[in-house]
């Protein structure tokens, strides 16, 4: 490390993996922020919702051996359903009893624990019934390549853009979206003007669950997945969501890409110039970014930019 010349590891592959990783992360964070905006709840269950997505998609692969991407829509539907289950089965009864936000969060935590148990049971079942590895899933071998780049890159970026665009139009150009936004801004007022707030919340929980499911379903195309993966990623999701700013849905995407950048590109640069040992602390990167953000822009990037625009 004597030489002054900076090693520049930022090559096309690095950019590609940054964009892929960030897209997946953003999809998860998008759900977290959406739920926060609608229900004012930080959804801890997002961890296992993501993992469920992966296992739904994988089960499809195991049973029918199709192209690994076939399971993605199913993951969206089923995990969206899990979101609804969490909402109608747990949160809604509590809301009717005016439970506090914190209690709702605990409920999501509890739901996460249950789901975690179920996923492990599923994993055991897959292993014993189909004789397949179910605790170290990686499907990237059966991924396609396009222009010499892995398919997951195009799919991840594509799906994220699609979701964002759809969400954008949904929120801004449909009566449903306007109702949804109304219930975000001021639920009691929305109630008063005849918006079915509960329905709106349910929709957002389905959407967020679906997003988690899709990101999870794409995960095995990129990295090794086991029942813990979601839990490992949870801190990153939350960081992305806060860094982006909880007050603006698209903050999540912003946060996801910033986090991904610092994580992949930033750490690479540091590791290859300062020393390899830095690479080890990669998991701490999101927290560092989070700290920095909270100190510089307590309302997150989006809030920060918004204030700038004024």
């Amino acid at each position: 490390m004597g030489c002054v010349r900076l090693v520049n590891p930022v090559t096309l592959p690095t950019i590609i993996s940054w964009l892929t990783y960030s897209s997946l992360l953003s999809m998860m964070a998008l759900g977290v922020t959406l739920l926060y905006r609608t229900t004012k709840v930080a959804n801890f269950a997002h961890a296992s919702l993501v993992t469920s997505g992966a296992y739904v998609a994988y089960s499809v692969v195991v049973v029918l051996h199709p192209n690994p991407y076939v399971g993605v829509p199913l993951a969206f539907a089923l995990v969206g359903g899990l979101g609804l289950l969490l909402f109608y089965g747990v949160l809604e009864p509590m809301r009717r009893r005016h439970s506090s936000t914190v209690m709702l969060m605990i409920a999501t935590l509890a739901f996460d624990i249950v789901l975690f148990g179920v996923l492990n049971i599923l994993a055991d079942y897959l292993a014993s019934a189909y004789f397949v590895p179910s605790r170290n899933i990686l499907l990237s071998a059966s991924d396609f390549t396009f222009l010499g780049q892995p398919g997951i890159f195009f799919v991840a970026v594509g799906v994220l853009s699609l979701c964002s665009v759809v969400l954008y139009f949904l929120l801004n150009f449909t009566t449903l979206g306007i109702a949804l936004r109304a219930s975000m801004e001021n639920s009691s007022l929305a109630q008063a003007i005849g918006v079915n707030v509960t329905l709106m919340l349910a929709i957002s929980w389905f959407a967020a669950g679906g997003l988690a499911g899709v990101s999870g379903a794409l995960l095995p195309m990129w990295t090794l997945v086991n029942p813990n993966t979601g839990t490992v990623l949870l801190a990153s999701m939350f960081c992305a969501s806060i860094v982006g700013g909880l007050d603006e849905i698209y903050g999540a995407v912003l946060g996801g890409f910033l986090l991904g950048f610092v994580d992949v590109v930033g750490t690479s640069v540091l590791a290859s110039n300062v020393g390899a040992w830095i690479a080890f602390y990669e998991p701490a990167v999101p927290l560092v970014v989070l700290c920095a953000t909270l100190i510089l822009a307590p309302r997150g990037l989006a809030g920060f930019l918004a204030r700038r625009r004024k």
Partner: protein
Amino acid sequence: MALGQVILFIVDLLALFSIYLIINLGLNLQQGITGIPNFGLVLAVAGGAYITASLSTRLAIYLLNVHTNLDPIINNVSVLQLVNPILRSSPWLSTGLLALFLIIGGASGALMGLISSAPAVRLREDYLAITLLAFGEILNVVGTGYDPLIGGPPGTSLPDIFGWAGQYRFYWATLIMFLVAVIIFVYIERLVRTPFGRVLRAIRDNENTARSLGKDITRYRMSSILIGSILCGIAGALWALYSGAVTPSYDRFDYTFLPWLMILLGGIGSNIGTVVGTLVFVTLDELIDYFKYAFAPFLPFNVVWLNYLLLGLLTIFILIYRPEGIVREKWTSVPAAPPPAGEAKPG
């Protein structure tokens, strides 16, 4: 022999109860009394455990002036073979060290509380919750990566300050932990009855009004987090000393989720509730653990997943059907507005 097993069952139960009681009192002070949702408890517990473990052997060498050129962390076991005989021979010396280590544990906990809450204490409740959760497990990264702390993944052992009790080591250790827990309970119970405690509860009930009455919200929240974190740190140190070793594996489930579940069960806001909740939970958990072999044959899946399913569902059940827990907060006869159905009986 069977009797011996019963005693052991109860002793183990008591040990877990004491540890969790300390942690839960800390959590109840923050969430139940002051209204700070600390989802990063594990940080303070791990801080207490890791830092105490890291310093304990070094301090022991220094204080007992054991002369060795072995590294207290890397050649941990060999070094302890020099230290432990000395401790075994003198209960009082051991107890002195214990006290010192507990102080270190508390201080470490406080440090962690400070670090995690400093950027967040001014944030809104929800931001605070998420941030603290995100911070929770960072110490494991450090503990794994930075060997001088606790020797990386293999972890490190601590001087056996209960060694003097010989084969009754774990009975004595449990007794001492229990005493510490009792002392802390009495302390907190008194603290929340002082004007100081009253202000904390006022802030919880209505932050703005409290501010309009000249209370420095940030300072009170901070001190509440600090006290809570100190307790968690002490608990971490105690458990490390009890089990004799630590590894960088303190996780969200054991040291954040379970404490929340326990204070929920007992009734958030009441210290007696915290005791009851902890006792009931730990007993249940130990019994599940004990009986699982009995009904393992009847389960279509591996019995170890049962804990997760049962604990998760239990929590959800409590949250939906008895959110106020077993014991309601003492100072009130009816829950704060609006009362859940069939609850509004004053007196």
